């Protein structure tokens, strides 16, 4: 490497390191202040917040376990029907109209994915309520919550299937059924180069977002351990997710790099 290039590298580092050190110091100070305040207000504010949150979540179940997925389904159906109507009227060339159809379907898929996770979350909250709540009618709650989860999953899976099948109508080259185990892989294989590029760009953005989220969650778990006696399980889980995310990315990068080296 030329000395000019080395000089350029050092110059770039020198420029960025000042800002990096300032951010590091400010973050440490902010962390110290937040930590201090958390400990100081542990008795007063922490108890109120944790009790209110618990009350809110336990109050939601078991009704929300059924109501939320059904409400979500109405939105998904609305978007699906709107897309269908627009597609029937589409002249085969209007790009803006097709973009609108695909946007509605993308939002419907997004909503169905969020609903899946929310359903699982509410299931966990519901069972927590059963174990630690004061309700006597435990059998009814167990049956209701389990039934609500099954109903949610069925509703979400069927709506997912409808949307995917509609996308396959619009794009006949697409392959894969939502009921098959390797649906994501089959779908990806049937995508062309431009669609694959979009998928990969979106995945990288998700990777960056999860990295940032993990760092925030780590901070919350550390504070939670000090203020709300979370214990070490939450921070351990966040760390595991973080390591798995980064390691799977790095491992795949290395594998792809070695493939391209072999071809070259």
């Amino acid at each position, binding site marked *: 490497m030329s000395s000019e290039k080395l000089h350029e590298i050092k110059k770039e580092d020198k420029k960025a390191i000042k800002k990096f050190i300032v951010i590091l110091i400010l973050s440490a100070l902010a962390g110290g202040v937040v930590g201090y305040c958390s400990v100081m207000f542990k008795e007063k504010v922490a108890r109120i917040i944790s009790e209110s949150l618990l009350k809110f979540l336990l109050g939601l179940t078991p009704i929300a376990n059924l109501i939320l997925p059904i409400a979500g389904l109405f939105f998904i159906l609305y978007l699906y029907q709107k897309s269908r109507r627009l597609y029937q009227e589409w002249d*085969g*060339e209007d*790009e803006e109209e*097709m973009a609108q159809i*695909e946007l509605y379907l993308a939002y419907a898929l997004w909503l169905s994915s969020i609903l899946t996770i929310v359903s699982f979350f509410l299931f966990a909250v519901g069972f927590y309520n059963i174990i630690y709540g004061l309700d006597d009618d435990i059998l009814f709650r167990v049956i209701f919550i389990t039934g609500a989860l099954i109903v949610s999953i069925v509703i979400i899976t069927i709506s997912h299937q409808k949307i995917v099948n509609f996308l396959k109508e619009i*794009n006949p*080259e697409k392959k894969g059924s939502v009921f098959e185990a390797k649906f994501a892989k089959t779908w990806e294989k049937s*995508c*062309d*180069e*431009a*669609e694959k*590029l979009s998928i990969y760009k979106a995945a990288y953005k998700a990777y960056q977002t999860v990295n940032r989220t993990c760092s925030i969650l780590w901070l919350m778990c550390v504070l939670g351990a000090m203020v709300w006696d979370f214990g070490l399980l939450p921070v351990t889980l966040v760390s595991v997710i973080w390591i798995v995310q980064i390691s799977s990315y790095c491992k795949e990068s290395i594998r792809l790099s070695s493939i391209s080296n072999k071809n070259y």
Partner: protein
Amino acid sequence: MPLYNRLKEYRANLKINQFELGQLVKVSRQTISQIERGDYSPSVTLALKIAKVFGVTVEEIFHYEEDEIDE
């Protein structure tokens, strides 16, 4: 890196729509649309396939012009 193209013009000459062209070169209608708008630059393989459909060279459909910034 602007890659200009006359894809829409050639497609109109052949009287085929985006979907039909997509089927011929094994990509989606959406990709053809993105190429025509200049939102996506096709790979060399895809550009060659497109040129073959119209019976012309790649340079007759696609051309690249330097930006002032690039210079």
